C-alpha cells in the first residue's frame, strides 16, 4: 500500500477520536471553572450576610431582645439571597430551591433558617426555634442524679441539676449559671466582704488570680452630642446592657444615658443608687472584674463538688486538677466543642434530609465540613451557608461556606480586648507590649474603638441633619500589631503565664506581670458585663 493511503487512513481514524477527547476535556474544564466561580460567589454572599448581621446588631440598642435578633437574622438572610441572586442572575424562587439551610451560630445556641411547611400546601423560609448547645447527663452509678448543661462559645454554662438524694426538698432541683474556671487559681483576700461591699477605698476591694491582684477600674470614653459641645471624656460603668455616664458639669443631673445623641438624665432611684454606691475619688468605679472572679470561684467549686460524677465515655470532665478550662486544649473545652459539634451536625442532617421533600430531582446531602471550618465555628459567632443542586457541566454543585464575625456584641472572645497605652492601642500579641513595659495600660473591648455617627444640624437653624463622626477612643493603632499583624504570642499564653519568646529574648511571666494584670482584669470585666439572656442564680 502506498504510504499516502496509510497516512490518510490514520488521519481518518485519529481525527474523530481526538475530537471526542477534546470535547470531553472541554466539558471537564467548564465544570471546574464554574465550580470555582460558584465557590467564590457563595463566599462573597456569605460575607455580605455576616457583615449585614454585624452592622445591624452593633448599631441596634435593643439587639439582645429576642424578637429584635430574629429581625436581624431575617434581614441578614435576605441580604444573602439578594447578593447571590444578583451575582448568579437567579430570582429568589429559583434560588430557594438550591439553598437547603443557613445556620447562624450565636453565643449560647444557634438558629437554623430553612424551608418548612406553613400550611398543607404552602412552604416558605423561616427561622426555626433557637437551639441551645445542651447535653443531658445521667449518673451511671445509679444514684439517680441527672443534669442538663447548656454550653456557650466560651466557658460560661448553665446547669439544671436534679438530685433525688438531697436532704431538703428545695435542694433537689438546682438551676445556676456561671463561668467555669479553676477555683484553686482564685484567692479571696481576708477581710474583704465581697457580697456587701460596692466600693473599696484605696483599692481595698480586690481578689487574687494566680497571685495577680485584680481591683476596681475607672473607665472613660469620648462622647459627642447633637448639640456639638466639645467632646469630653466621660467616666462610665455598665448597668444591664447600657452604660451609665457620670456628668462632668456641676448640675443636678449627675448621671445620664447616651441615647439619641443627647444626654438623657437618669431619674430612677435604684439606678442612681447603683452608681452612687460605686463612687470614689475620681469617679464611678467598675467592680465587674472582681465580681467575675468571685462568682466564678463559687460556681466552679459547686460544679467540682456536685457534678463530679459526670462522665463522657468514661472520661471525667469536671474537677480535673491543674487544668485551666478557658484554654484551648483543656478537657472542658474539648468536651464543649464536641457537644456543640454533635448538636449542629444532628440538626443539619435532619434539616437537609427534610429538604428532600421539597426537592424536584436532586437529592440533598450534607457536605463534609473540614476541620479548620469546625474550629472556626465552635469558637466564634459565625454563619454557615449551603448551596446545592445547580447543574454545572458534568455534575451538580454541592458546597458550603463558613464565615466568622470578629467584631460582635454577642460574645467576648479572648482576642477582642485591645490594650491602650499612651497614644496607641495594641492587640494581644504585639511585641511592643511585652518588650517596652508600658506603665499605664488598660484594656477595652474592640467595639469601643469603632467609629460612631451622630446626626446634628451643626448649630444652624435649618432642619438639615448632617452626619458628624467621632471615635469613642482617640488612640491610634500601633503599626506592629494593628496594621501589620505581626503577632508573637496568643492570649492563651498570657492567661497561663507561659514564657514568651520575641526575637530570641525570653520573657517570663514576672517580666510582663503588668500586662497580665490589666488584660485579665479587662477580660473579666467585659465577660461579666456581657448581657446574657439566660442566667440563673440559685442559693448554693
Amino acid at each position, binding site marked *: 500500500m502506498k504510504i499516502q493511503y496509510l497516512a490518510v487512513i490514520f488521519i481518518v481514524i485519529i481525527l474523530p477520536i481526538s475530537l471526542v477527547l477534546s470535547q470531553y*476535556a472541554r466539558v471537564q474544564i467548564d465544570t471546574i471553572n464554574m465550580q470555582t466561580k460558584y465557590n*467564590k460567589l457563595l463566599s462573597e454572599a456569605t460575607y455580605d450576610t455576616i457583615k449585614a448581621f454585624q452592622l445591624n446588631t452593633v448599631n441596634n440598642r435593643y439587639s439582645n431582645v429576642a424578637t429584635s435578633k430574629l429581625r436581624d437574622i431575617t434581614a441578614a438572610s435576605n441580604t444573602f439571597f439578594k447578593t447571590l441572586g444578583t451575582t448568579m442572575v437567579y430570582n429568589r424562587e429559583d434560588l430557594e430551591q438550591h439553598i437547603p439551610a443557613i445556620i447562624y451560630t450565636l453565643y449560647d445556641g444557634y438558629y437554623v433558617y430553612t424551608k418548612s411547611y406553613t400550611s398543607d400546601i404552602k412552604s416558605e423560609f423561616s427561622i426555626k426555634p433557637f437551639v441551645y448547645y445542651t447535653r443531658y447527663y445521667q449518673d451511671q452509678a445509679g444514684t439517680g442524679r441527672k443534669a442538663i448543661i447548656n454550653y456557650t462559645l466560651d466557658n460560661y454554662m448553665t446547669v439544671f441539676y436534679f438530685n433525688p438524694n438531697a436532704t431538703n426538698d428545695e435542694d433537689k432541683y438546682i438551676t445556676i449559671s456561671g463561668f467555669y474556671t479553676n477555683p484553686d487559681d482564685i484567692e479571696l483576700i481576708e477581710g474583704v466582704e465581697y457580697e456587701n461591699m460596692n466600693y473599696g477605698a484605696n483599692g481595698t476591694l480586690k481578689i487574687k488570680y494566680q497571685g495577680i491582684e485584680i481591683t476596681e477600674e475607672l473607665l472613660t470614653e469620648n462622647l459627642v452630642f447633637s448639640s456639638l459641645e466639645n467632646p469630653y471624656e466621660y467616666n462610665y460603668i455598665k448597668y444591664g446592657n447600657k452604660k451609665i455616664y457620670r456628668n462632668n458639669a456641676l448640675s443636678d443631673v449627675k448621671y445620664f444615658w447616651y441615647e439619641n445623641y443627647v444626654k438623657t438624665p437618669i431619674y430612677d432611684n435604684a439606678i442612681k443608687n447603683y452608681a452612687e454606691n460605686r463612687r470614689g475619688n475620681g469617679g464611678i468605679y467598675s467592680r465587674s472584674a472582681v465580681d467575675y472572679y468571685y462568682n466564678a470561684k463559687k460556681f466552679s467549686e459547686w460544679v467540682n463538688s456536685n457534678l463530679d460524677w459526670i462522665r463522657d465515655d468514661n472520661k471525667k470532665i469536671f474537677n480535673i486538677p491543674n487544668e485551666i478550662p478557658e484554654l484551648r486544649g483543656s478537657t472542658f473545652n474539648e468536651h464543649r466543642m464536641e457537644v456543640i459539634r454533635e448538636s449542629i451536625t444532628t440538626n443539619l442532617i435532619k434539616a437537609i434530609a427534610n429538604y428532600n421533600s421539597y426537592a424536584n430531582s436532586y437529592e440533598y446531602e450534607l457536605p463534609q465540613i473540614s476541620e479548620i471550618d469546625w474550629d472556626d465555628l465552635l469558637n466564634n459567632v459565625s454563619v454557615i451557608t449551603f448551596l446545592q443542586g445547580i447543574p454545572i457541566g458534568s455534575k451538580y454543585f454541592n458546597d458550603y461556606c463558613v464565615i466568622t464575625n470578629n467584631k460582635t456584641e454577642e460574645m467576648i472572645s479572648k482576642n477582642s480586648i485591645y490594650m491602650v497605652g499612651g497614644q496607641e492601642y495594641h492587640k494581644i500579641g504585639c511585641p511592643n507590649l511585652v518588650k517596652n513595659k508600658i506603665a499605664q495600660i488598660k484594656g477595652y473591648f474592640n467595639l469601643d474603638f469603632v467609629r460612631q455617627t451622630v446626626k446634628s444640624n451643626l448649630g444652624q437653624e435649618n432642619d438639615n441633619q448632617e*452626619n458628624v463622626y467621632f471615635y469613642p477612643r482617640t488612640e491610634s493603632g500601633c503599626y506592629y500589631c494593628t496594621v501589620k499583624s505581626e503577632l508573637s504570642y496568643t492570649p492563651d499564653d498570657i492567661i497561663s503565664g507561659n514564657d514568651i519568646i520575641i526575637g530570641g529574648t525570653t520573657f517570663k511571666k514576672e517580666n510582663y506581670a503588668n500586662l497580665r494584670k490589666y488584660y485579665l482584669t479587662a477580660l473579666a470585666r467585659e465577660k461579666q458585663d456581657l448581657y446574657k439572656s439566660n442566667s440563673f442564680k440559685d442559693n448554693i
Partner: protein
Amino acid sequence: MGDSIITIIAIFLAAILMFIFPLMALSERTDNIAELSVQTATAEFVDTVRTTGKLSLSEYDKFLSTLTSTGNSFEIEMKIQQLDENPGKKVTQATSSKIGENIYYNTYTSQIMERFQTENIIYLKEGDIFSVQVKNTNKTISQSLRNFVYSLAGNDTYQIAAEHGGIVTVNGN
C-alpha cells in the same frame, strides 16, 4: 528520478500528518488542562487565605507542590495590601464632618518570603487585600513545537498563567 522526489515528499507529508499535527493538538490539550489545574489551585489558595486570614508556610508549600505536579516550573508573585485606618481616624478627629481615607501598604513576594524565614504564619486582618499571580517559566512541549513551525517575537511569552485576589474577610488571630 521524479518518482523518488514524489516519494520523499509523500513520506515527509505523511510524517507531518501522522506525528506533528496530532502531537501539537494533544500538547495544547495538555497545556489547557495544566492551566485549568493551576487556575483552580490559585483560586483555592487565595480563597483559603481570604477566609481564614492566615498565610502559612505550609499552605504555600502545598500550593507550590500542586503547581509543580503539573510538570512545569512556575514563578509565583504574591502581593499583600495591608489596610491602615489611622490616617482616616486622624482626619475625622480633626474635622468631625469628614470621613478620612484609609491607605494601604503593599508587601511583595520577596518581603513575604523573608518574613517566612522567621515566622511560620503571617496573620492578615479584615480589610487587607491579598492577590497571587502565577506564570510558567519553562518551555512546554507545545511552545517548542509552535516555535518550530512559526516563531513568535518576544521570548517572554508564557503559556500557562493564572491570577486571583480578593479582600480578607476575617481577622487571622
